């Protein structure tokens, strides 16, 4: 994927990167594999309590193998400015879009699992070009959107050690290399963890962070969850609700993270079976279900469980899954869990200015009380009306408003 660099001095240079055009034969091969899928029998339940339902994924596979068009996604990606630079021995890919507004705030936005840079495509224009979206020029951002190590077009680590702190340090190097002396960081899922750790590392240029997946669970609550309950006494209604959401996550929905955290290589087959990969990636839940409710709605083409897809489409979902397939990053992405046995949920202990958006459909909706304890300089806290785990992907408008409002206090 990345160009070979002979002269090591050039490795630190920022090299323009062309999204590789996937050969027709490879796309044909993918379609042929999907068409040749050998299916299990249907689940014995009428809901998703045994996993991704057969009817849902068969419908998706039929479309994926026939009318789905990767070239559309490829073209959308190609229209953006991509770059690669080697940091700490690894090629890091990123999209870099500068706002026309010169004094825009530089912002590095990090995706998570099972996501990619594709989750952020819809927020690029709203954030870099706010006046075209009914927002103020003073709220403009310069955007840097990297692929995590082992994901998308970034290199795959060949040795252990690429944990979240190392990624955070690499991101600080990246922003410095781009000449940004003042910037902010944003993220959800693993991107939230990276942003939290960047704040803890406090590199000279970092003004503050915005997270839509805050780590806020207090130690006594975490302990109670680990033990399987009951919750500590004295929780407010918001806190009790969050506790119940977390309890569901830990008892029913953590197998995927447990498996990737301990045995990523055992999932070797999801590099061989497109449908196997799709099922694995779809199986990330949110507070409304597993697969995540908006993803389910997008795949089915109608609102399921009362949770609309928002801006998320079936093509979006397949674009993301196809990216994992075409870059063969399913297992390298899984290894991020192995590298980091930290909990994304536990109280982050961040002292740098932090803005938090607690979306209603997230795995758990962090109560303000917990958020204030975890983020000691909380400059913004809001519970938007809509949006879930894949907030930028599902609700780009609301998400952009949150980021603008959240980071506004950092601007001078």
């Amino acid at each position, binding site marked *: 994927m990345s160009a070979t660099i002979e002269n090591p001095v050039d490795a630190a240079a920022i090299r323009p990167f062309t999204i590789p055009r996937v050969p027709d034969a490879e796309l044909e091969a993918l379609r042929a594999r999907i068409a040749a*899928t*050998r*299916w*299990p*029998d*249907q*689940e*014995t*339940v009428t809901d998703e309590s*045994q*996993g*991704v*339902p*057969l009817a849902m*994924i068969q419908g998706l596979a039929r479309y994926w193998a026939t009318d789905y068009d990767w070239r559309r996604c490829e073209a959308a990606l190609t229209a953006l400015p991509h770059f690669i630079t080697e940091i700490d021995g690894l090629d890091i890919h990123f999209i870099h879009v500068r706002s026309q507004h010169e004094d825009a705030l530089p912002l590095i936005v990090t995706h998570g699992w099972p996501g990619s840079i594709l989750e952020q495509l819809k927020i690029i224009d709203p954030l870099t070009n706010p006046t075209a979206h009914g927002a103020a020029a003073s709220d403009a951002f310069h955007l840097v959107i990297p692929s995590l190590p082992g994901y998308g077009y970034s290199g*795959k*680590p*060949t*040795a*252990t050690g690429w944990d979240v702190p190392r990624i955070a340090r690499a991101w600080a190097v990246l922003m410095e290399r781009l000449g940004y002396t003042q910037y902010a960081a944003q993220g959800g899922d693993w991107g939230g963890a990276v942003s939290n750790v960047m704040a803890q590392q406090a590199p000279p240029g970092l003004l503050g962070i915005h997270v839509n997946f805050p780590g806020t669970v207090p130690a006594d609550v975490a302990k109670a969850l680990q033990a399987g309950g009951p919750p500590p006494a004295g929780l407010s209604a918001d806190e009790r609700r969050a506790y119940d959401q977390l309890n569901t996550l830990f008892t*029913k*929905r*953590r*197998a*995927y993270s*447990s*498996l*990737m*955290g*301990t*045995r*990523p*290589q*055992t*999932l*070797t*087959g*999801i*590099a*061989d*079976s497109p*449908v*196997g*990969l*799709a*099922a*694995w990636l*779809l*199986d990330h839940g949110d507070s409304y279900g*597993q697969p995540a409710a908006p993803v389910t709605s997008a795949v089915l083409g109608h609102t399921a469980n009362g949770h609309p897809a928002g801006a998320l489409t079936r093509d979006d979902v397949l674009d993301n899954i196809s990216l994992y397939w075409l870059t*063969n990053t*399913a*297992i*390298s992405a899984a*290894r991020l869990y*192995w590298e980091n046995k930290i909990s994304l949920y536990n109280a982050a202990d961040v002292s740098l200015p932090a803005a938090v958006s607690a979306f209603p459909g997230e795995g758990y909706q962090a109560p303000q009380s917990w958020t204030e304890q975890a983020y000691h300089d909380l400059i913004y806290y809001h519970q938007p009306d809509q949006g879930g785990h894949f907030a930028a992907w599902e609700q780009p408008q609301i998400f952009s408003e949150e980021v603008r409002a959240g980071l506004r206090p950092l601007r001078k």
Partner: protein
Amino acid sequence: MSGETEIRPFRVDIPDEAVADLRRRIAAVRWPGQELVADRSQGVQLATTRELARYWAAEYDWRRCEAKLNALPQFTTQIDGVDIHFIQVKSPHENAMPLIITHGWPGSVIELLEVVGPLTDPTAHGGRAEDAFDLVLPSLPGYGFSGEPAEVGWDPGRIGRAWAVLMDRLGYTRYVAQGGDQGAGVTDAMGREAPEGLAGIHLNFLRDAVAGAHPPAETAAEERAADAIATFRTGGFGYFLEQATRPQTIGYALLDSPVALAAWMLDHDTDSYYKISRAFVDGQPAGGLTRDHILDNITVYWLTGTGASAARSYWEGGRAQVIAAGQGRPEVKLPVGFTTFPDEIFRAPRSWVEQAYPNLTYFHEADRGGHFAAWEEPGLFATEMRAAFTSLR
């Protein structure tokens, strides 16, 4: 009505195209990158899977396994709505004791083929006629050549009741039951329900201890066992949790990719993984765990397309556990025999087994063997069976 209780002879007869398709899929495999560690700490090692795939596609011969199965008396019969496949081998000796042995995951009747001779025909294997057994080896619902349940509820208790029906249907009025892994769950359930005819049970796995019970950790042996379980639950529990909560999700890869299936099945526990890995990578099989036998088992899962339905048995087990929590279970009053094999996930100390089964009439710590005890050490396993059940004859 009689049609439903009919016992029909069964032969394995896999079409050539299915075998060819398997080879094609292996040949077309897309590999991920290699693990970043030098051992199994990130999961099944690429070199192991590659070598297994190479042998599977180029040298392994399914028809040999098929012939071996078909040389045994196989049957199917419908019980409680599901077609149950089983092997039944009657001993040539008089007064042979009927014994039903239940396999587990990721096993099958394949694990037990080498104990058929020693158990049913002991005199030909250095044993005594008085120690002969009639053997019944069923395939669990959703595994191997048994049918897949289409409804929720096939937990170990229901399977145990189906086994009681099976033994009754075969005309056995007095029999014993044995099991390891999932089979231990089924056999334990039979012990608690004590169906008419069941005289006693033997187990080689204390399932409750792994599934979340916390037996005491006071003696050195108990501490060691508790540590081993803690290690397993921390680092090796992923497949268990996935199958117990999302069997359909992992099921798609298990049905579509032979390599996915093989890798998944190799990762049951540290000991069996390394034994299997050495068999392929170093050419050093552990007892009966040869390359061919390992692939016989995986190929059965592949050809029967039972990866997902087998995974679902963990979901059923988990569901049953939740339902049973807080409801007392009847004790096992029947005589219980137990063998601790040294390389099992944890070495069950006698104290734990006694606590679980107060009527413990036989306990022994074997010299060799791990999780797939009968498979690795058929002779030793047979010896254990004879010793465990001799008091019940």
